[in-house]
């Protein structure tokens, strides 16, 4: 995961999660984040994947402030998993939920379990 700015300032501590952020066609998300921060709240940006093509300087600046979940190395993922399993009840519940939505989905259970891994990384 890239390092990101530690949140500072007053107001709520919020997180934003987007599939690919920043990206040229998602400038409205950048505006929303800027406007929420202008109201005194702190936002950590998370992108599930890397690779948004950016043309604008504002997007380039956003890229440096965004943590990419799938950038996490094997060690980090393992650590995240161990941490999440520290609460076995919650972990089993989440696992069951992941399998359930995976079964219904066209993507299948495997993809859904990948979401669970991303959720573990995010939780840390």
């Amino acid at each position, binding site marked *: 995961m890239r390092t990101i700015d530690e949140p500072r300032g007053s107001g*709520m501590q*919020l997180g934003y*999660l987007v*599939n690919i952020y920043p990206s040229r066609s998602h400038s409205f998300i950048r505006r929303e984040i800027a*406007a929420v921060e*202008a*109201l005194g709240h702190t936002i950590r940006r998370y992108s599930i994947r890397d690779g948004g093509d950016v043309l604008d300087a504002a997007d380039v600046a956003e890229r440096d402030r965004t943590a990419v979940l799938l950038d996490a190395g094997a060690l980090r993922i393992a650590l995240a998993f161990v941490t999440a399993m520290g609460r076995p009840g919650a972990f089993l519940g*989440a696992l069951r939920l992941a399998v359930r939505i995976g079964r219904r*989905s066209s993507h299948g259970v495997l993809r859904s379990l990948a979401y669970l891994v991303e*959720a573990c990384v995010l939780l840390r």
Partner: protein
Amino acid sequence: MEHLHAHFGSNPPAVAMLCRALGGPSYSFTAHGIETFDAPEFQALDEKISRAAFTVGVSQFGRGQLCRWSDPAHWARIHVIRCGVDEQFLGRSPEPVPRARRLVCVARLAPEKGHVPLLHAVHRLRETGRTFELVVVGDGPMRAELEALARQLGIDGLVRFAGWQDNAGVVREILSSRAVVLPSFSEGLPVVLMEALALVRPCIATQITGIPELVEPGVTGWLVPASSDEALAASMAEALDADPAELERMGRAGAERVAALHDARVEAARLVDLFAGAVRPDPTARRPDELRGSSDERPQVGPASGAMRWAAARILRASGQVERNRTALYGGAAGLRIAVFHGTPPATLEELRRTVEWWRERWPIAAPADVDELVAGRWGNGDADRLLVTFDDGLASNYDAAVWLARAGVQAVFFVVPTLLDRTIAQFVRYHQERGVVAVPPVPHGDVRGLSMTQVREMLSMGHRIAAHNNAHRDLGQLNEPRDLQYEIGEAMERVAELTGAPCRDFAIGFGQPENISADAVDFVKQTCPNVYMCYRGLNVPGRTPRFLLRHAHDPGHPTAFTRLCLEGGADHWLLDRIRNMEGRVGLLPVGCEFAA
């Protein structure tokens, strides 16, 4: 992290939902395009909505789709927050519609964007003998195919494929065109339409999904049925033949609509309100001064700690602790008790009434001028405490409190954030942003308003005192530079003096704790202002308590019994360390009763 917001309805909310199930923060998500609604059961949309704190659609149409795929029990938690454009588009002065016969289409070159009927429409127009240019901004999987089609139709001389442009490039292309055309088959609510209208260019778009909520035929542009190159050609012909003045009229109507519906700042403020509803702060983890944060909106104290406070109040009073505390802290002397309220929506106003009436049945009410006497060392040493009612921030809801107090014969002090007058929180933040200052909103709700100048003048004529609060509501504990202190304190005092036509004597320190005022700020405020107010409990007694006045912050979530206990002084000892801290820093209130009343 207190809350996680995901964008798009696909995997981000799935990850957010699983993170929540693992014990992570509450979540919400904004669903955009129509693709979310194409396979809702595969996406587990119902599951995501039911577990989310709230869900957002970007148009009324989008909200309808979210309702369609979720249980009616959740519909109240599905909201419309529209995508916004920022000052790059909203703030600029309009440029006239060009005479040049040029139209522009800004979209990814993908099948669902409808470029194929667009090129056929261009072909139809050329058959009518019109000369014009269509600029196609964007790139994508269909580029080669579309370029080939243009050649095949013999219109490659009329169509310019411009590729992707940066923001400034897109703005340039839109401004040098008469209208923007977007022939999509499937969309959420395309941002380019908002951008075009904000730039005073009418739009030709398909009558699908949320688009008719923005593009109104004959008013802000043209609507055509999806995939009809005939209808598209007819609308494009009208746009090409129209008098630029007519196009400008439509563009202006569109710009007004965008400013009203799609201001990023306003929409963000509405979203923040929803976030605040999702985030339930643990009140015991926060300082009492912070508890006033959003007193305009919701109670701050949960039932459990409310019951504890109620019980504590009963026990302390029953055990005689109230009297013992007062003797220990103030030698049994009487003094000035100051209560501070923040926003006063109806529920808080009701508590204000009850509190004032309860006090008045027992003890005298103080007037603002009593503070001048106290600070000058001329405090009459009567045997009863007096209560002064004050208000911080200057939110619009204070006006009703001012009216009620005036009728009840009570004069209060209103500490206003001067730059919040006549502004909403969002406008206040922006005002300071333009001056390079990051303001701290007194309440985290962008559309909450400050008092108006007219209301303030009326309040003055009712006999209330208008006083100063931090100009940008920044934390004075963090500020040391003379320039910043002048901005926060000096300017605030000057503005209030200008407003009232008399020198300003009173300044309340924002957040009000000892750590919220630096040594430099103490020096500055001492030189500028006679009466300085902090914000934690205590009775102001000459020779015994700090020179900077103590106030009790009323919390709308506290049980009445606890509020009364605090005003009687039964809980002052809990904050004794703060009282002692400030004594050491600013000295004690002067003693001397030679002019005592």
